[in-house]
């Protein structure tokens, strides 16, 4: 049997990148709380796990690098080397190198160029002592710091299908050997069946060995982290531990509990959550969610048919079934939801690196990082958010001197907050920097011909001008900004996610950017309307109101454009039937209905024949089997099984031009 190693490698890489994320998060935390030994332990464990697994899987560059990193971390853990901004800096750089090495091994991308440099810096901090071995004759303190050093009796019995998993007991034993000195090793072949009964692809052997090691048990256990559940791995300490040890243990426990009351639990809780999660192939998940979507459509078809057959009496069974199906759908959609924490962490890293580089002091605050969003949305919102946080650090927050001169604290403040509100997720980015120079933006917009110099613009409207292509407000192009990506791209990216972004800036006080995102891209609340014999869906989010206008409220302007007056406001009317080429639909607004929709701050009225009702629509994109159609955001399947098109408010408007 040939075993495909790739899937194991995949899971190794996935886990390694999770470890790297944890390391980075802990390092960033460590900077503000350098005395937190638990954080150091977390970092060490992560590095150690990567090292162990990478040698198992033969990703040697990673193994060698983590070895150097680990030696330093070990000494930091023992308190021999203090946590300073310099060490944190180097460690963060190491995390980058590590992640670079891993992606090089995974995707064949170029290896990070600064590996040797970072290794040199790590070794320099480590005082030239790059390996454990030299540490032994160092100080008595070192010996005392190794209470866990001892002799273990190790039993290792691979499960019968061990080889089928692509694992090799020898590699693991060798790894174990590297962790200390093996004084005795015995092969236990008592389980070996007679030749006739033997399956050559099964494993029947077990090993017992005596290992002397200065590492604690959990570290040794890490060697076996990739084995399956049925494999037996036991560590026993033959001698009772030294007398003073329990005391130390107790102390540690109390501190841990004390911490648990404070700030630490959040990180811990999320750590456990990750461990309990199951990795699923995205495609499989999507196809399951799709099928449950079909089930929902199916059940509404059943409901309708039953209503026709029974003449309106309820069927308890159908009601029950339909409730279950809808719950099931809700749950299936929640499977795609992931917290925004990872993205926020990336932002924290960027704030840290950038502010150091630019000589600014910034206190970065994050809240609501547990807020969950559709995986697709989280993946795609990262870049826009990072772009905006760069802006805040680069253009928003002033240098400490300038801040003090302006009567503000020297340390700037940036906060990111995620929260739910009314079926949407909001991400708010707030800084207390100098705000945007509204006059300059206005002047620039006039120069570029975007607005006329006589236009009266509100402060808000001027702020929104930065979303126009080609209006960069950076006074000078630094290496941070000026990458040719502007706020217009940010806005477009967000709109592609069916979200919106607003910006408000007050000179001298700061800037707030608010991004609104839908919870999921798979489902939308729709308003069903009829147009001729067709049914269309308007996303409910953009609907403001609907009404039948009176004759005197509708006016035809000179250029054949109809407008309607709504409480003093003049709103243009879009004749949907002519845009969508539908004959036999109502063309007189006073006979049909007007649905007022809003796109950003522009409102317009859609002329429709009638409203049918509100419905949750499972979105099917047309591109799956066809192509993008202007004015149409996608399709959905109605209760009676036919397809209804979902209108795309933004591009509808452009169709009339």
């Amino acid at each position, binding site marked *: 049997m040939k075993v495909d190693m790739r899937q194991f490698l995949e899971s190794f890489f996935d886990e390694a990148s999770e470890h790297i994320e944890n390391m980075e998060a802990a390092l960033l935390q460590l900077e503000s709380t350098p005395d937190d030994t638990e954080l150091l332990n977390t970092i060490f464990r992560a590095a150690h796990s990567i090292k162990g697994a990478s040698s198992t899987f033969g990703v040697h560059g990673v193994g060698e690098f983590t070895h150097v990193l680990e030696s330093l971390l070990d000494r930091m853990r023992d308190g021999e080397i203090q946590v300073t901004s310099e060490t944190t800096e180097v460690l963060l750089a190491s995390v980058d190198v590590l992640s670079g090495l891993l992606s090089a091994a995974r995707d064949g991308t170029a290896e990070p160029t600064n590996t040797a440099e970072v290794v040199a810096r790590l070794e320099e901090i480590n005082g030239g002592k790059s390996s454990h071995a030299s540490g032994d004759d160092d100080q008595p303190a070192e010996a005392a710091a190794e209470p866990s050093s001892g002799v273990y009796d190790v039993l290792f019995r691979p499960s019968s299908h061990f080889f089928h998993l692509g694992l090799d007991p020898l590699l693991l034993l060798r790894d174990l050997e590297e962790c200390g000195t093996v004084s005795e090793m015995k092969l236990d072949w008592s389980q070996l069946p007679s030749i006739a009964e033997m399956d050559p692809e099964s494993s029947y052997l077990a090993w017992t060995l005596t290992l002397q090691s200065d590492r604690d048990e959990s570290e040794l256990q890490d060697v076996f982290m990739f084995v399956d559940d049925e494999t037996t791995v036991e560590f026993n300490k033959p001698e009772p531990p030294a007398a003073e040890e329990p005391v130390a243990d107790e102390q540690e426990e109390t501190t841990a509990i004390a911490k648990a009351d404070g700030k630490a639990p959040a990180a811990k809780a999320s750590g456990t959550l990750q461990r309990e999660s199951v990795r699923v192939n995205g495609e499989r998940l999507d196809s399951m969610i799709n099928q449950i979507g079909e089930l929902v459509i199916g059940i509404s078809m059943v409901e309708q048919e039953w209503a026709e057959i029974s003449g309106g009496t309820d069927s308890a069974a159908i009601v029950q079934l339909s409730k279950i199906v809808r719950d099931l759908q809700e749950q299936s959609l929640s499977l795609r939801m992931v917290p925004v924490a990872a993205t926020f962490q990336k932002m924290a890293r960027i704030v840290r690196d950038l502010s150091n580089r630019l000589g600014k002091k910034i206190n970065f605050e994050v809240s609501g990082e547990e807020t969950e969003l559709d995986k697709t949305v989280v993946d795609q919102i990262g870049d826009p958010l990072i772009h905006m946080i760069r802006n805040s650090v680069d253009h928003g927050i002033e240098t400490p001197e300038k801040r003090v001169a302006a009567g503000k604290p020297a340390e700037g403040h940036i906060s990111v907050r995620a929260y739910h509100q009314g079926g949407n997720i909001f991400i708010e980015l707030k800084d207390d920097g100098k705000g945007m120079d509204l006059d300059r933006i206005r002047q620039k917009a006039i120069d570029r011909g975007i607005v006329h110099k006589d236009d009266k613009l509100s402060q808000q409207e001027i702020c929104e001008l930065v979303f126009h292509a080609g209006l960069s407000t950076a006074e000078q192009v630094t290496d941070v900004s000026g990458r040719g990506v502007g706020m217009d791209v940010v806005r477009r990216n967000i709109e592609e996610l069916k979200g919106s972004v607003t910006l408000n800036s007050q000179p001298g006080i700061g800037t707030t950017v608010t991004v609104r995102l839908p919870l999921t891209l798979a489902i939308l609340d729709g308003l069903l309307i009829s147009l001729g014999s067709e049914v269309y869906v308007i996303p409910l989010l953009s609907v403001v109101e609907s009404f039948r206008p009176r004759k005197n409220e509708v006016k035809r302007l000179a250029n054949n454009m109809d407008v309607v007056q709504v409480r003093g406001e003049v709103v243009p009317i879009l004749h949907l039937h002519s845009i969508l080429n539908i004959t036999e639909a109502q063309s007189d607004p006073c006979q049909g209905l007007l649905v007022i929709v809003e796109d950003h701050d522009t409102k317009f009225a859609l002329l429709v024949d009638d409203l049918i009702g509100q419905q949750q629509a499972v979105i099917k994109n047309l591109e*799956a089997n066809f192509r*993008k159609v202007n*004015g149409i955001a996608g399709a959905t399947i109605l209760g009676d099984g036919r*397809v209804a*098109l979902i209108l795309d408010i933004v591009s509808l408007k452009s*169709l009339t031009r």
Partner: protein
Amino acid sequence: MTITQEQELLEQAAEIAQIAEMTDLSTEGNQFLTFTLQDEEFGIEILRVQEIKGLSRITPIPNMPYYIRGVMNLRGTVVPIIDLRAKFAMPQVDYNQFTVIIVVTIGEKVIGLVVDAVSDVLNVAEENIESAPDLGGQADTTFMTGIAKSGERLITLLNMEDLIGAETISM
């Protein structure tokens, strides 16, 4: 569409499946599903055909070329429907009980083709397929892979990629 019509179609499809089974499947892949448009016979590779379906409600897509009739719900998948008569600029007729939709796959995409009627499954030996005639710009033959001869019949073999290709669906 009434239930009896649907049934008829299903029987028809079952019959075709039966024919397909009877035909020797081991021959090197030159099997075609043939169908008629007007009085002409056309064939498409059988491996492309996902299923044959009765006509059901088609939702028009605005501002599309005439031959793109709209989209249909195929067990939860939204599938574009292309009228081959319209595509070949043949005179239009009302859809009737024989009108069927042949659901084909082109790459990853699933597309429905409206044809007058399906006729049978044909096994054509390589030597009985002639390459498409070059009519020197008189007629567009790029979407033909060749012409198959079966007894008296001449069947135009269609190349789906070129016929439905990039201009219709983005691939």
